[in-house]
Protein backbone atom coordinates (compact mmCIF):
# COMPACT_ATOMS: atom_id res chain seq x y z
CA UNK A 1 0.00 0.00 0.00
CA UNK A 2 2.59 2.53 1.10
CA UNK A 3 4.89 1.35 -1.67
CA UNK A 4 2.22 2.03 -4.27
CA UNK A 5 1.59 5.57 -3.04
CA UNK A 6 5.16 6.52 -2.27
CA UNK A 7 6.63 4.98 -5.43
CA UNK A 8 5.80 7.82 -7.85
CA UNK A 9 6.83 10.42 -5.26
CA UNK A 10 10.24 8.81 -5.02
CA UNK A 11 10.52 8.67 -8.78
CA UNK A 12 10.34 4.87 -8.80
CA UNK A 13 8.48 2.50 -11.00
CA UNK A 14 4.95 2.34 -9.56
CA UNK A 15 4.77 -1.38 -10.33
CA UNK A 16 7.73 -2.12 -8.12
CA UNK A 17 6.75 -5.23 -6.21
CA UNK A 18 9.58 -4.98 -3.72
CA UNK A 19 11.08 -8.10 -5.27
CA UNK A 20 13.47 -6.27 -7.61
CA UNK A 21 12.97 -5.56 -11.26
CA UNK A 22 13.39 -9.18 -12.27
CA UNK A 23 10.57 -10.36 -10.02
CA UNK A 24 10.88 -13.34 -7.68
CA UNK A 25 13.67 -15.86 -8.24
CA UNK A 26 12.97 -19.14 -9.98
CA UNK A 27 12.19 -22.25 -7.96
CA UNK A 28 15.60 -23.71 -8.77
CA UNK A 29 17.11 -20.89 -6.69
CA UNK A 30 14.49 -20.48 -3.97
CA UNK A 31 14.16 -24.15 -2.99
CA UNK A 32 17.89 -24.84 -2.44
CA UNK A 33 18.18 -21.47 -0.68
CA UNK A 34 15.45 -22.47 1.75
CA UNK A 35 17.18 -25.77 2.31
CA UNK A 36 20.45 -23.90 2.90
CA UNK A 37 18.68 -21.95 5.68
CA UNK A 38 17.47 -25.25 7.17
CA UNK A 39 21.03 -26.61 7.12
CA UNK A 40 22.36 -23.51 8.85
CA UNK A 41 19.72 -23.87 11.55
CA UNK A 42 20.70 -27.53 11.87
CA UNK A 43 24.30 -26.42 12.40
CA UNK A 44 23.06 -24.04 15.11
CA UNK A 45 21.44 -27.08 16.77
CA UNK A 46 24.76 -28.92 16.62
CA UNK A 47 26.53 -25.90 18.11
CA UNK A 48 24.30 -26.20 21.20
CA UNK A 49 25.28 -29.87 21.51
CA UNK A 50 28.95 -28.93 21.05
CA UNK A 51 28.63 -26.28 23.75
CA UNK A 52 27.10 -28.73 26.23
CA UNK A 53 29.76 -31.32 25.38
CA UNK A 54 32.55 -28.79 25.95
CA UNK A 55 30.99 -27.73 29.27
CA UNK A 56 30.65 -31.35 30.47
CA UNK A 57 33.78 -32.96 29.02
CA UNK A 58 35.54 -33.15 32.41
CA UNK A 59 32.45 -34.30 34.34
CA UNK A 60 33.38 -37.97 34.18
CA UNK A 61 32.18 -38.82 37.72
CA UNK A 62 35.20 -41.07 38.24
CA UNK A 63 34.30 -43.05 35.13
CA UNK A 64 36.26 -43.45 31.91
CA UNK A 65 37.41 -40.29 30.09
CA UNK A 66 37.86 -39.82 26.34
CA UNK A 67 41.47 -41.00 26.55
CA UNK A 68 40.38 -44.41 27.80
CA UNK A 69 37.59 -44.88 25.25
CA UNK A 70 38.46 -43.47 21.84
CA UNK A 71 40.41 -45.34 19.18
CA UNK A 72 42.11 -42.97 16.74
CA UNK A 73 42.61 -45.55 14.00
CA UNK A 74 38.86 -46.18 13.86
CA UNK A 75 38.19 -42.44 13.75
CA UNK A 76 40.68 -42.01 10.90
CA UNK A 77 38.88 -44.68 8.87
CA UNK A 78 35.50 -43.09 9.67
CA UNK A 79 36.76 -39.65 8.64
CA UNK A 80 38.22 -40.91 5.37
CA UNK A 81 35.11 -42.84 4.37
CA UNK A 82 32.83 -39.87 5.10
CA UNK A 83 35.12 -37.56 3.12
CA UNK A 84 35.18 -39.93 0.13
CA UNK A 85 31.41 -40.23 0.42
CA UNK A 86 31.09 -36.44 0.22
CA UNK A 87 33.37 -36.47 -2.84
CA UNK A 88 31.44 -39.16 -4.73
CA UNK A 89 28.17 -37.41 -3.86
CA UNK A 90 29.50 -34.38 -5.77
CA UNK A 91 30.45 -36.60 -8.72
CA UNK A 92 26.95 -38.10 -8.71
CA UNK A 93 25.44 -34.63 -9.00
CA UNK A 94 27.80 -33.72 -11.86
CA UNK A 95 26.65 -36.86 -13.71
CA UNK A 96 23.03 -36.03 -12.84
CA UNK A 97 23.29 -32.56 -14.35
CA UNK A 98 24.22 -34.26 -17.63
CA UNK A 99 21.31 -36.71 -17.29
CA UNK A 100 23.69 -39.67 -17.23
CA UNK A 101 21.63 -42.36 -15.47
CA UNK A 102 24.35 -45.02 -15.20
CA UNK A 103 27.03 -42.83 -13.60
CA UNK A 104 24.53 -41.02 -11.36
CA UNK A 105 23.25 -44.27 -9.90
CA UNK A 106 26.76 -45.73 -9.65
CA UNK A 107 28.19 -42.76 -7.75
CA UNK A 108 25.10 -42.66 -5.49
CA UNK A 109 25.65 -46.33 -4.62
CA UNK A 110 29.30 -45.60 -3.80
CA UNK A 111 28.22 -42.60 -1.70
CA UNK A 112 25.77 -44.77 0.22
CA UNK A 113 28.33 -47.52 0.74
CA UNK A 114 30.92 -45.14 2.22
CA UNK A 115 28.20 -43.66 4.42
CA UNK A 116 27.22 -47.16 5.55
CA UNK A 117 30.86 -48.00 6.38
CA UNK A 118 31.02 -44.85 8.51
CA UNK A 119 27.79 -45.71 10.29
CA UNK A 120 28.82 -49.34 10.88
CA UNK A 121 32.11 -48.27 12.53
CA UNK A 122 30.27 -45.73 14.69
CA UNK A 123 27.62 -48.22 15.85
CA UNK A 124 30.36 -50.75 16.57
CA UNK A 125 32.14 -48.14 18.71
CA UNK A 126 28.91 -47.30 20.58
CA UNK A 127 28.14 -50.98 21.20
CA UNK A 128 31.68 -51.57 22.51
CA UNK A 129 31.43 -48.61 24.88
CA UNK A 130 28.03 -49.64 26.21
CA UNK A 131 29.24 -53.23 26.67
CA UNK A 132 32.15 -52.05 28.85
CA UNK A 133 29.80 -50.02 31.07
CA UNK A 134 30.51 -46.65 29.44
CA UNK A 135 26.96 -46.01 28.22
CA UNK A 136 25.22 -42.65 28.21
CA UNK A 137 23.98 -43.06 31.80
CA UNK A 138 27.49 -43.51 33.23
CA UNK A 139 28.45 -39.81 33.48
CA UNK A 140 27.53 -36.33 32.24
CA UNK A 141 30.50 -36.51 29.87
CA UNK A 142 29.21 -39.71 28.28
CA UNK A 143 25.64 -38.35 28.06
CA UNK A 144 26.95 -35.34 26.17
CA UNK A 145 29.14 -37.55 23.97
CA UNK A 146 26.33 -39.90 22.96
CA UNK A 147 23.97 -36.99 22.32
CA UNK A 148 26.40 -35.10 20.09
CA UNK A 149 27.89 -38.00 18.12
CA UNK A 150 24.59 -39.91 18.10
CA UNK A 151 22.76 -36.90 16.66
CA UNK A 152 25.28 -36.78 13.83
CA UNK A 153 24.87 -40.53 13.33
CA UNK A 154 21.09 -40.10 13.17
CA UNK A 155 21.55 -37.50 10.45
CA UNK A 156 23.77 -39.90 8.50
CA UNK A 157 21.09 -42.61 8.84
CA UNK A 158 18.47 -40.21 7.48
CA UNK A 159 20.86 -39.33 4.65
CA UNK A 160 21.26 -43.02 3.74
CA UNK A 161 17.48 -43.42 3.59
CA UNK A 162 17.34 -40.28 1.43
CA UNK A 163 19.97 -41.71 -0.96
CA UNK A 164 17.95 -44.90 -1.40
CA UNK A 165 14.69 -43.03 -1.96
CA UNK A 166 16.28 -40.64 -4.41
CA UNK A 167 17.94 -43.40 -6.44
CA UNK A 168 14.56 -45.03 -6.89
CA UNK A 169 12.88 -41.71 -7.76
CA UNK A 170 15.54 -40.76 -10.30
CA UNK A 171 15.29 -44.23 -11.81
CA UNK A 172 11.52 -43.90 -12.23
CA UNK A 173 11.06 -40.19 -12.92
CA UNK A 174 14.31 -39.29 -14.67
CA UNK A 175 16.15 -35.99 -14.35
CA UNK A 176 13.21 -33.60 -14.21
CA UNK A 177 13.83 -30.11 -12.75
CA UNK A 178 11.96 -31.19 -9.62
CA UNK A 179 14.24 -34.20 -9.12
CA UNK A 180 17.35 -32.10 -9.73
CA UNK A 181 16.21 -29.66 -7.03
CA UNK A 182 15.86 -32.53 -4.57
CA UNK A 183 19.21 -33.89 -5.68
CA UNK A 184 20.90 -30.52 -5.07
CA UNK A 185 19.32 -30.32 -1.63
CA UNK A 186 20.66 -33.78 -0.86
CA UNK A 187 24.22 -32.80 -1.86
CA UNK A 188 23.94 -29.76 0.43
CA UNK A 189 22.78 -31.99 3.29
CA UNK A 190 25.53 -34.55 2.77
CA UNK A 191 28.37 -32.00 2.46
CA UNK A 192 27.10 -30.19 5.56
CA UNK A 193 27.21 -33.45 7.55
CA UNK A 194 30.85 -33.85 6.58
CA UNK A 195 31.55 -30.31 7.81
CA UNK A 196 29.94 -31.15 11.15
CA UNK A 197 32.04 -34.32 11.32
CA UNK A 198 35.23 -32.24 10.88
CA UNK A 199 34.27 -30.38 14.05
CA UNK A 200 33.40 -33.65 15.85
CA UNK A 201 36.60 -35.52 15.06
CA UNK A 202 38.65 -32.47 16.04
CA UNK A 203 36.86 -31.48 19.25
CA UNK A 204 35.75 -34.89 20.52
CA UNK A 205 38.26 -37.41 19.28
CA UNK A 206 41.54 -35.55 18.71
CA UNK A 207 41.35 -32.98 21.52
CA UNK A 208 39.91 -35.68 23.77
CA UNK A 209 42.92 -37.98 23.28
CA UNK A 210 45.87 -35.57 23.22
CA UNK A 211 48.23 -36.47 26.03
Amino acid at each position, binding site marked *: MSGATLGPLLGEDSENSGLGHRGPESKSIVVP*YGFWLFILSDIVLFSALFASYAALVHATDGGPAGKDLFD*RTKVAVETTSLLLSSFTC*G*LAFIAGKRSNMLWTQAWLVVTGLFGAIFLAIELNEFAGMIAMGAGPQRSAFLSAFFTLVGCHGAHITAGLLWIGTMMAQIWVKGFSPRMMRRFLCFTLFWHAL*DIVWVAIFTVVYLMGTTP
Partner: protein
Amino acid sequence: MTERDKSANDVAPGQPHDKLLNEVASYVIGLFLALVFTATSFWVASTPVLWGPGIGVGLAVLAIAQMGIHLVFFLHLTSGPDNTNNVLALAFGVLVVFLIMAGTLWIMANLNGNMMPPDPLTNMQMQG
Protein backbone atom coordinates in the same frame (compact mmCIF):
# COMPACT_ATOMS: atom_id res chain seq x y z
CA MET B 1 16.87 -11.51 -20.66
CA THR B 2 20.36 -10.70 -21.92
CA GLU B 3 23.48 -12.68 -21.13
CA ARG B 4 24.72 -9.95 -18.81
CA ASP B 5 21.50 -10.02 -16.81
CA LYS B 6 21.75 -13.77 -16.52
CA SER B 7 25.24 -13.66 -15.03
CA ALA B 8 24.00 -11.21 -12.40
CA ASN B 9 21.34 -13.68 -11.22
CA ASP B 10 21.63 -15.44 -7.93
CA VAL B 11 23.11 -18.89 -7.76
CA ALA B 12 21.58 -21.62 -5.62
CA PRO B 13 23.80 -22.75 -2.75
CA GLY B 14 25.80 -25.82 -3.75
CA GLN B 15 25.22 -25.27 -7.45
CA PRO B 16 28.43 -26.37 -9.24
CA HIS B 17 30.11 -24.55 -12.13
CA ASP B 18 29.20 -25.22 -15.72
CA LYS B 19 32.08 -27.03 -17.44
CA LEU B 20 32.59 -30.72 -16.70
CA LEU B 21 36.35 -30.39 -16.25
CA ASN B 22 36.04 -27.39 -13.89
CA GLU B 23 33.40 -29.16 -11.83
CA VAL B 24 35.38 -32.36 -11.39
CA ALA B 25 38.60 -30.39 -10.80
CA SER B 26 36.89 -28.47 -7.98
CA TYR B 27 35.93 -31.71 -6.22
CA VAL B 28 39.36 -33.32 -6.76
CA ILE B 29 41.21 -30.28 -5.40
CA GLY B 30 38.79 -30.13 -2.46
CA LEU B 31 39.23 -33.84 -1.69
CA PHE B 32 43.03 -33.54 -1.88
CA LEU B 33 43.18 -30.47 0.40
CA ALA B 34 40.70 -31.98 2.87
CA LEU B 35 42.78 -35.18 3.06
CA VAL B 36 45.96 -33.13 3.63
CA PHE B 37 44.30 -31.14 6.43
CA THR B 38 42.85 -34.28 8.04
CA ALA B 39 46.22 -36.03 7.97
CA THR B 40 47.88 -32.90 9.43
CA SER B 41 45.28 -32.80 12.24
CA PHE B 42 45.90 -36.42 13.18
CA TRP B 43 49.68 -35.84 13.04
CA VAL B 44 49.48 -32.70 15.19
CA ALA B 45 47.39 -34.55 17.78
CA SER B 46 49.82 -37.47 18.11
CA THR B 47 53.31 -36.05 17.61
CA PRO B 48 55.54 -35.30 20.60
CA VAL B 49 57.48 -32.71 18.55
CA LEU B 50 55.05 -29.82 19.05
CA TRP B 51 54.60 -27.67 22.15
CA GLY B 52 51.80 -29.27 24.16
CA PRO B 53 49.64 -26.28 25.18
CA GLY B 54 49.53 -25.02 21.58
CA ILE B 55 48.10 -28.23 20.14
CA GLY B 56 44.46 -27.39 20.92
CA VAL B 57 44.63 -24.04 19.13
CA GLY B 58 46.47 -25.64 16.19
CA LEU B 59 43.76 -28.31 15.86
CA ALA B 60 41.01 -25.68 15.95
CA VAL B 61 42.72 -23.65 13.22
CA LEU B 62 43.17 -26.77 11.05
CA ALA B 63 39.49 -27.71 11.51
CA ILE B 64 38.24 -24.23 10.59
CA ALA B 65 40.52 -24.20 7.54
CA GLN B 66 39.15 -27.57 6.45
CA MET B 67 35.57 -26.35 6.86
CA GLY B 68 36.47 -23.43 4.59
CA ILE B 69 37.81 -25.87 2.01
CA HIS B 70 34.57 -27.86 2.14
CA LEU B 71 32.53 -24.67 1.69
CA VAL B 72 34.56 -23.46 -1.29
CA PHE B 73 35.28 -26.66 -3.22
CA PHE B 74 32.27 -28.84 -2.32
CA LEU B 75 29.53 -26.28 -1.70
CA HIS B 76 30.92 -23.83 -4.31
CA LEU B 77 30.47 -20.81 -2.08
CA THR B 78 32.19 -17.83 -3.71
CA SER B 79 32.59 -14.12 -3.01
CA GLY B 80 30.87 -13.25 -6.30
CA PRO B 81 27.76 -11.04 -6.40
CA ASP B 82 25.59 -14.02 -7.39
CA ASN B 83 26.42 -15.65 -4.07
CA THR B 84 25.74 -12.73 -1.72
CA ASN B 85 22.54 -14.17 -0.24
CA ASN B 86 24.10 -17.57 0.45
CA VAL B 87 27.18 -16.03 2.09
CA LEU B 88 25.09 -13.61 4.19
CA ALA B 89 22.95 -16.47 5.50
CA LEU B 90 26.12 -18.40 6.33
CA ALA B 91 27.62 -15.37 8.08
CA PHE B 92 24.53 -15.05 10.27
CA GLY B 93 24.69 -18.77 11.05
CA VAL B 94 28.34 -18.47 12.05
CA LEU B 95 27.48 -15.51 14.30
CA VAL B 96 24.77 -17.51 16.11
CA VAL B 97 27.06 -20.53 16.46
CA PHE B 98 29.80 -18.31 17.89
CA LEU B 99 27.42 -16.68 20.39
CA ILE B 100 26.07 -20.04 21.58
CA MET B 101 29.47 -21.69 21.96
CA ALA B 102 31.41 -18.75 23.42
CA GLY B 103 28.50 -17.69 25.64
CA THR B 104 28.00 -21.18 27.06
CA LEU B 105 31.67 -21.75 27.77
CA TRP B 106 32.05 -18.31 29.33
CA ILE B 107 29.02 -18.67 31.61
CA MET B 108 29.78 -22.24 32.62
CA ALA B 109 33.44 -21.39 33.41
CA ASN B 110 32.24 -18.48 35.56
CA LEU B 111 29.73 -20.68 37.36
CA ASN B 112 32.38 -23.28 38.09
CA GLY B 113 34.81 -20.56 39.21
CA ASN B 114 32.27 -18.97 41.59
CA MET B 115 30.99 -22.26 43.00
CA MET B 116 31.34 -22.31 46.79
CA PRO B 117 33.76 -24.94 48.04
CA PRO B 118 31.81 -27.96 49.27
CA ASP B 119 30.90 -27.67 52.94
CA PRO B 120 31.45 -31.01 54.66
CA LEU B 121 28.28 -30.49 56.77
CA THR B 122 25.95 -29.92 53.79
CA ASN B 123 27.62 -32.80 52.09
CA MET B 124 26.70 -35.10 54.96
CA GLN B 125 23.14 -33.81 55.02
CA MET B 126 22.76 -34.44 51.31
CA GLN B 127 24.10 -37.93 51.66
CA GLY B 128 21.87 -38.61 54.62
